[in-house]
C-alpha cells in the first residue's frame, strides 16, 4: 500500500525528473537529493523524508521521455517510489527495469493526491475510492531481468556462465 504523493500530466521529461545541471552527480547514493529539483515543494518534501518508501507518483502518457540519463531512475529508486503511468518512454522504462525502480503501466489510472493504492501484478486498486484499474504486464523478456534482481545481477550470471563454459 502506498499513498499518491504527486500527480503529473503527459510527457514528463527526464529534465523535469532530474535536471541536466546535476548530471555530473552520478552515484545512486547521491542522486536522490536532486529528484524533481525544479519542483521545489516536491523536492523539499522528499529530502525532508516526508515521503515513505512505497509512495506513488502518477504520470500520464510518455512518462520519462527525453534523455537517457539513468540518474532520472536512480533518483526515484533512492526513495523506493512506485511510478504508475498510462505508459512510459522506452529508455526510461528499460532503465527502471535494469535498476529495479517499480514502474506500473496502467492506461486508465485515475486517482487523487492522498489516495491509498495497492499495486498487484494485474491491477492497481484505489483503496480510497474502491476503483480498480488493469495493469499491462511487462513483456516476458523484460520481466526476466526484474526477476533476476536487475541487470547487474542478470549480467553477472551471464558473465559467470560464460566463464565456466570456457
Amino acid at each position, binding site marked *: 500500500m502506498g499513498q499518491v504523493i504527486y500527480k503529473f500530466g503527459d510527457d514528463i521529461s527526464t529534465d523535469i525528473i532530474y535536471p541536466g545541471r546535476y548530471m555530473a552527480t552520478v552515484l545512486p547514493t547521491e542522486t536522490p537529493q536532486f529528484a524533481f529539483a*525544479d519542483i521545489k515543494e516536491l523536492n523539499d518534501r522528499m529530502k525532508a523524508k516526508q515521503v515513505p518508501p512505497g509512495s506513488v507518483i502518477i504520470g500520464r502518457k510518455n512518462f520519462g521521455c527525453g534523455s537517457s540519463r539513468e540518474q532520472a531512475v536512480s533518483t526515484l529508486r533512492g526513495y523506493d517510489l512506485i511510478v504508475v503511468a498510462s505508459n512510459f*518512454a522506452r529508455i526510461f522504462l528499460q532503465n527502471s527495469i535494469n535498476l529495479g525502480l517499480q514502474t506500473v503501466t496502467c492506461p486508465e489510472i485515475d486517482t487523487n493526491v492522498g489516495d491509498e493504492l495497492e499495486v498487484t501484478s494485474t491491477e492497481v486498486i484505489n483503496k480510497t475510492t474502491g476503483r480498480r484499474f488493469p495493469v499491462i504486464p511487462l513483456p516476458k523478456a523484460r520481466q526476466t531481468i526484474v526477476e533476476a534482481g536487475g541487470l547487474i545481477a542478470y549480467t553477472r550470471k551471464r558473465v559467470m556462465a560464460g566463464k565456466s563454459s570456457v
Partner: protein
Amino acid sequence: MGMTVVEKILARASDLPSVKAGDVVEPKVDLAMSHENAALVINQFIEIYQGTSIQPKIWDPSKVSIIFDHRVPAESPKTASNQKKIREFVATNGISKFHDIRGDVGGICHQVLPENGYVRPGSVIVGTDSHTTSHGALGAFAFGIGATEMASVWALGSVLNVEVPTTIKVNVSGKFKKFVGPKDLILHLIGKLTAEGANFRVIEFHGPTIRNMSTSGRLVICNMSVEAGATSGIVPADKETFRYLTREAGVKGKIVLVSPDKDASYEQTIDIDVSKLDPQIACPHTVDNVKSIKAVKGIKVNQVVIGSCTNGRLDDLELAAKILRGKKVARGTRMLIFPASARIYNQALAKGYIGEFMKAGAVVMNSGCGPCLGIHEGALGDGEVALSTTNRNFKGRMGNPNSEVYLCSPAVAAVSAIKGAITDPTKGVK
C-alpha cells in the same frame, strides 16, 4: 515475409536467418558509445564483477568509443574529476576511439562518430545518449540506452533481451522552399506523430526528398526521431551514404548497403510532401508542440543558439553566415554559435564563417553540447526566451525552469537574431 532494414540488421547481428517485429533477440554490438556518463558506466561495469573471481574486462575495446562533449571544458571540479577517471580507464583498457577535449579531433559524439568513419551501414550501435538515433542517417540501427545497460554491453558485447521494434515508414516527396529544410521536415513529422507516437518503434525514411538529401540533413532527421519517441530513425544506405563515408569520413574497404525488402511489413506508412512546408517551430515546453512560423512570428527573443548535434554542421553554419553577412545581431539579443565538432569549427574558420559571425556580434563557442542541456554555459534568465536550433525545449532545458525555448532551423535562427524576434526567412530575406 520480407524484412525492414532494422529487422535485417538485427537478424545479421543475432546470427538468425530472419527476425520479425516482436521477436526477442540478443544482437552483437558493433559500436558502443558513451560520453561523460561513462563515469557511471565504469562504476556499474565494475559492480557486475563484484563477488566473482573474474577480472572486469571489456569484450572488445576497439568497439568502444568515449567522447567528451557534455561539459567541455569542465565546468566544475566534479566534472573534471569524472573526466580524469574516464581518461585513466580509457588508457588502462586500451580504448582507442576516445576523443578528449581538443581543438582538432574533439566535438559532439553524434558528429565525431560519423565524421571519423566509426558508423557503418548495417551495424548495431548503442550509445548512452538518447540522440544516438542520429547514426541511422548512415543506415545503422542506432539507439540510446542507460549506463547500466552499457556496462552490460561492455561485459558481454551484446544487448540482452531486445524486442525487435515495429517500423513506421515515412515517404517524403517534393522540393523544399528556399530556407526550408530537414529541420522543418522533422519538426513537422514530430508534430504529426506526437512525442510518443513512435515510442518503441523505428522510423524508416524513404522517398525522393530523402534520396536527394545530404548526410548532414539525414543526421538532422534521425537525430530528432527520438523526439517522437522512436527507438531509432534510419535512412537505408545509398549512393550518398557511400559518398559520405568514402569522401568525408575516410572509410576504406568494403561498405555493405543494407536495404529493406520490397515486401517488408510496416506498422503504418506516412506520406509527406514538403513542397508547401513553411518553416516549423516547436513551441514551449514540448517538442511536439509544433506550429508554422506564421503562428509565432514577432515573438521577442533574448538568446539565439545555432549549433548542437542537430544543427551545428558546416552546411548549417554556411547558411547562417550567408544570412548574417554584413548584418548585426539585434541589440538586446545574444547569439551563441557552437559548431558540432572541432573539424567543422576548423572548416568554418577556413571558409571565413567564424569571422563573419563575430563581426555580426555572435559569440562563437567551442564544440560541445553547450547550452542545449543547461549544464554550464548559455543559461537563460528568469522570463527569458530562447530560439534555438537544438533538439529539446523541455521546461528547464536551458538551465532555467522559468524560461522558454523555441526550436527552429538555422535559417530561422539566423534571420531572427538580426531582427531580435522570431522572423520568417522565406519572407523578404535575400
